[in-house]
């Protein structure tokens, strides 16, 4: 039996129609996605391309909010599996002519879409889309709500670099309030029973999440297995959430010196794109502890796994 066919048998009995958020996933589903991603990574790329398990399927990239890396990653994943990828670019779309999201959904549905991959500025847009689609909806990032495939590729990276996904202390540092990456990761680690530490100024770290809040980066660093730095956006300064990137970097930036306080085997992550010199120093980003490029590479495999599993549930 060809190696891929054996791997594809792991997809059987997947029931979930859409990938809208980590919030919805059971621990079992998370582990299945992770296991499948690892298997796909082990197979030679040529073997997968030759089998083309998604041949004849149409994948619609519906990126209302711009993206380069996620869109490219999903595109590579889909084409790797043999699917046809149609790109929906907002400036040329009827959305700008005032067509509602609902009508756009129905329009592309009538064109025969198996998978709609949506990134939107509004939290909940994928959930809305799913109501009008027969095909599968994958959330590539909705507002400040979730970015499930990011959290899953982060988990795959942790699995490879730390060697396990449970019994971990995971720190997220930065603008947690506005980060869909942070939210997806928090729900993920909560489901896995990991210890969560959220670090940043009180203006950027809300009270209502699981785990504990710290305002002292240096104090938490020595005990963490995973330190995930989040990007600081300049509009938050204009909104009065922090005074300056200089002060932010001084208090919460991962300098080389601070990274040196981390324990042996602990890793530094960042969803990208990085603001070098703000939330992370160049030396810390380029150090052996940093697994940022691994995260990017792993994105393709996690997205391939998601597409293959959701295919099982297609009507």
């Amino acid at each position, binding site marked *: 039996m060809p190696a891929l066919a054996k791997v594809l048998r792991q997809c059987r009995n997947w029931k979930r129609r859409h990938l809208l958020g980590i919030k919805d996933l059971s621990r079992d589903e998370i582990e299945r996605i992770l296991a499948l991603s690892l298997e796909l990574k082990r197979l030679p790329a040529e073997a997968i391309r030759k089998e083309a398990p998604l041949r004849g399927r149409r994948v619609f990239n519906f990126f209302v909010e711009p993206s380069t890396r996620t869109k490219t990653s999903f595109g590579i994943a889909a084409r790797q599996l043999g699917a046809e990828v149609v790109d929906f670019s907002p400036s040329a779309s009827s959305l700008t002519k005032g067509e509602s999201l609902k009508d756009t959904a129905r329009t592309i549905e009538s064109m025969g879409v198996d998978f709609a991959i949506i990134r939107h500025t509004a939290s909940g847009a994928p959930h809305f889309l799913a109501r009008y689609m027969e095909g599968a909806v994958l959330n590539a990032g909705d507002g400040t709500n979730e970015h499930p495939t990011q959290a899953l590729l982060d988990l795959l990276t942790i699995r490879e670099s730390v060697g396990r996904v449970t019994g971990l202390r995971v720190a997220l540092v930065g603008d947690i309030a506005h980060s869909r990456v942070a939210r997806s990761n928090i729900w993920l680690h909560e489901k896995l029973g990991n210890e969560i530490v959220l670090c940043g100024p009180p203006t950027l770290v809300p009270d209502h999440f699981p785990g504990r809040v710290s305002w002292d980066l240096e104090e938490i660093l020595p005990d963490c297995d995973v330190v995930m730095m989040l990007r600081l956006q300049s509009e938050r300064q204009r909104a*009065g959430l922090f005074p*300056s990137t200089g*002060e932010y970097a001084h208090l919460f930036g991962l300098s080389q010196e601070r990274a040196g306080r981390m324990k042996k085997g602990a890793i530094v992550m960042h969803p990208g794109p990085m603001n070098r010199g703000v939330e992370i120093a160049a030396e810390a980003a380029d150090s052996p502890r940093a697994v940022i490029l691994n995260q990017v590479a792993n994105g393709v495999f996690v997205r391939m796994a998601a597409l293959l599993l959701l295919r099982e549930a297609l009507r």
Partner: protein
Amino acid sequence: MSLVVRRGRIFDPARGVDEVGDLHIEDGKIVSKAGAEEVIDAKGLLVVPGLIDMHVHLREPGGEEKETIASGVAAAVAGGFTSVAAMANNLHPTDTASQVIHIRARAAGAGLANVYPIGAVSKGLRGEELAEMGRMAEAGAVAFSDDGFPVTDSALMRHALEYAKMLRRAVIAHCEDLSLTAGAVMNEGAVSNRLGLRGAPGAAEAAPAARDILLAEMTGGRLHLAHVSARQTVDFLRAAKERGIAVTAEATPHHLTLTEDSLVEYEARFKMAPPLRRREDVEAVVAALADGTIDAVASDHAPHAAHEEERELAACPNGVVGLETTLGVVLGLVEEGKVSLARAVEALTAAPARILGIPKGTLAAGSDADVTLIDLKAKWVVDPDRFRSKGRSSPFAGRTLRGRAVHTIVGGKICF
């Protein structure tokens, strides 16, 4: 260098101490026993922890014609104050660490009262973006305030309270709704009406105060209300404290004693923000000080150059001086039986120390030797021409006050 303050009435509300005895000072600290080189005879004098004025405007850098740090700290020790907290609204606002460092260095150079800089909440006091509170705190800022101006944007005030919470410091609120106080030179009411002057109502202070109290409750941040003047503000403050909200407050000597009637001759020395109000407001503020609802007395010492005050009322700037009269005025309230001596001294020592988080306000052994010797019986007439402050605009000019500081010791050094 050692010093003994002999036979004074040692009065330290922080420790509940009120007893006649000797106070020993060595190398700038209060000790249980010292080989006394120098002796101060404190017989008949009240010996209290060095007084702290947590709300003064020293004007430097930028406003040196009104006051300098040197003249300000000279005025402070003359008034019995060993420490002051300096507000940020200079011409060059204290909104970065370098200004905090500069002010501390200038104060150290003057070698009199301690100066604790207060950092701005917003850059340039513009009320738009947060100032670098973290770095200012590291440089020695003890609290944050845009005083002189309110923080009008509620989201910014909210964020300031949250951010300051991380730094374990209070945000000091100047509560004023500018749309209600526009053009006002005094309190709004029967008096302003009769005088033909534009007034601002108590609600212009109380409504923003209520907002700030709600934001403090929501964020868990520490709020301090500056210069409380209106009965309505006192009501909200009392309710907030009953709820356990982390809010403290101060009142000025003039809001504890003077009413809007003072403005009858249109004199600039009665013009300040918030304005002098009604008898009902004064009584509410005094009662609140007496029961601790208002924690501290602070002068809001706001000097201006003489030529600025020699104008028609509407053209005069807001603000009066207070470092050299505050103690006398507060002791007057004690003499009238309106506030206990313990509460009055606490309001000028332990309470401001606690609010600012500074290790002062007590005469416990090991503390810095900041001590004020007070003659409770001394009668004196307030003569602004003899002030050490450059500012001369005093609402108490010509009044006879009873009680004044006769010696002020800072870090074991006799500064006055």
